């Protein structure tokens, strides 16, 4: 009975083993062809190097600015209580207790605003007229006093630092002058200085650029992989099957994607000391999922196209749609459908916020879903396609 079980197992296994061997050979073929293709080599190796390098340099430029955040303070308050100007007192506190902030008293709000737009300063604090009397009058602390803060919206880290610094100063003031029951509320608003430098913080750069890079590179390589593989038609007359061919191509390009990701990681971590907050392994997985989407879409395009030119057109078209939705469509609901956005959220979740996989599982599943959809469709279409020899 053992023998019979083994023999029937063999009957199922042998074709399977044969299939696996063929897939292995097809993967080697695909990789060998890629090695001989100069353009492909450029896309696989050089492109990630250049883009990641550029990303990192943009970040460097920002960090060579002062490590301190310049805050302009405009005191419009002339009221006093018992001869003391609480606004001046607050400014004093800022000097000493707003860490990492350089306080610059200024007279003109307009000039300060101009400087903020030019990114010469990071924030403006305006203490309005009546601050001292407001604070002193409200003994019960029921009526708060306000100060205005104008922040640079694109500088997330700076915002945080300024707010915490000012908050510190306010707390210190309350303690020193015994207004602990009173509220001093900073009203904040943000401006977004439009700038040619673009994103200034790598924690914003990485999640945005990496998906564009990985998906773009994957599309470039895979959109030609079936339509440009003319001898494949002859190969399909051998025992090699259509599904074997597609599986082999998927595996090949996943391997290539892994190499690309490792190059990217090497540049970021070794070159720019970038430290993802979350686990490196998760980072790698998420990046691989991103590439996988590009591969799935690219293979689908390649199967559906009837000529190399057409495949190029489709891939450019698809890529443009992805980018346009990401960057130009302000409707959050649509934006969140974009795989580039999904990847961006997943990546930033890991790198900037250190989330465990579980918390970004929705994005990952959506991405995987898209990939599965396109790959699955590719298999179906390829099955019915007639490539006559």
């Amino acid at each position, binding site marked *: 009975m053992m023998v019979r079980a083994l023999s029937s197992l063999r009957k199922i296994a042998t074709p399977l083993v044969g299939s696996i*061997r*063929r897939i292995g050979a097809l993967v080697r073929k695909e990789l*060998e*062809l890629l090695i001989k293709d100069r353009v492909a080599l450029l896309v696989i190796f050089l492109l990630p190097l250049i883009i990641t390098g550029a990303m990192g340099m943009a970040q460097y430029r920002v960090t060579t600015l002062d490590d301190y955040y310049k805050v302009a303070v405009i005191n419009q308050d002339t009221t006093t209580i018992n001869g003391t100007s609480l606004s001046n007192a607050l400014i004093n506190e800022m000097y000493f207790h707003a860490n990492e902030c350089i306080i610059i008293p200024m007279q003109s709000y307009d000039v300060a605003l101009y400087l903020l737009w030019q990114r010469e300063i990071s924030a403006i604090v305006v203490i309005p007229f009546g601050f001292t009397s407001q604070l002193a009058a409200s003994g019960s602390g029921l009526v708060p006093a306000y100060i205005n803060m104008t922040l640079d919206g694109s500088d997330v880290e700076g915002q945080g630092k300024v707010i915490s610094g000012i908050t510190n100063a306010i707390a210190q003031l309350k303690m020193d002058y015994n207004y602990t029951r009173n509220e001093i509320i900073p009203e904040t608003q943000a401006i977004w200085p439009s700038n040619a430098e673009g994103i200034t913080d790598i924690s914003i750069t990485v999640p945005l650029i990496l998906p564009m890079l990985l998906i773009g590179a994957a599309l470039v390589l895979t959109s030609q992989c079936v339509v440009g593989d003319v*001898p494949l038609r002859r190969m399909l*007359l051998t*025992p090699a099957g259509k599904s074997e061919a597609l599986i082999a191509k998927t595996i090949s390009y996943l391997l290539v994607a892994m190499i690309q990701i490792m190059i990217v990681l090497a540049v970021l971590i070794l070159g720019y000391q970038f430290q993802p907050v979350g686990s490196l392994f998760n980072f790698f997985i998420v990046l691989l999922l991103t590439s996988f989407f590009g591969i799935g879409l690219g293979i689908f395009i390649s199967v559906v196209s009837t000529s190399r030119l057409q495949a190029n057109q489709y891939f450019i078209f698809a890529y443009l749609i992805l980018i346009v939705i990401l960057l130009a469509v302000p409707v959050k609901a649509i934006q969140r459908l974009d795989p580039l956005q999904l990847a961006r959220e997943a990546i930033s979740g890991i790198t900037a916020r250190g989330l465990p996989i579980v918390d970004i599982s929705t994005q990952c599943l959506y991405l995987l879903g898209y990939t599965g959809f396109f790959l699955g469709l590719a298999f179906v279409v390829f099955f019915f396609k007639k490539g*006559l*020899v």
Partner: protein
Amino acid sequence: MNNESVDIELKNVSVKIRKKTILEDINFYAHRGEILAIIGGSGAGKTTCLRVLTAQIKPTQGEVYLAGYNVAEEKEKLKEILGYVPQLEEVSAYPEFSALKNAYYFGKMYNLPDDVIRERATRVLKILGFETEEMMEKKFGELSGGEKKRVSICIGLINNPKILLLDEPTTGLDAHLRIEVLNYLRNLNRRLGITICIVSHDLETAEYCDRIVILDRGRVVVFGKPREFLKELPNDGTGVRVKFRYLTPEGRRKIEKIKSVKFVLPVGRNTLKIFPRDGGYRLGKLVEELYALGLEPLELTEVDANFSDYFRLVYQGAFGRIRDIFDIDFE
């Protein structure tokens, strides 16, 4: 016919694609170990026959058998024993790989061991005229048209197929290479018993085959063994080749009207092949009759008819094989 010894068979096969009839009522077969030639002009449907045999196209009607198996049902089994050499260069092999490397990857599709592939490929390439290692390692894309064709044949043989199908294997080759390829295929057939099917537009293939099918515009015009066809000619195909000093179309018509003459074929400048009727003609009498018509024969040679002669006579409606004579308009 489904008996064991038939390796290739098309039975009542019709192929209609989008209202266009490409093949109609095709019937032919070949026994194991035979060489079958499928001949026809462009648009005759010969490549379609191959595509039907390899199950790339499903016939609208009829059945297709290879090695006794119904092609529609046993596709996978047949892939192992079938070899196919396509017509177009771009489908044949990867231009970036050498001949040996191409053979390697195609061979791997049959899960053949590496050394077997290399040995087989080198042996076949040598026989096909690839003398040096250098040639075998040259990129496929850099080879000449004829060299590419030969590499393609090598790839088609990598799995030691029982049945080999070739689509126009000699087109584009120099005269002596065409003969070499055909000789090689014939040797292969005679020594290893591989059943071979050659599709060609050139009748020279007819000299090499055991059975021949001639297609014209999707229909079978002739099917059978070339040697038997020649028996349909009077006097077992013996005729006279006559060269005249000066021959006009009217002169030829007069010769056709001679009682003892059955068929007349122009074969050259002022030269005809005359096939007399059955029943012992006399060369002397023929010469007399020619002179009587005012013609001046310069040279007379007794010759045997070849298949090209037979084929041309078929097209002239000589044997009633063509129901409606297609308008011969020279294209």
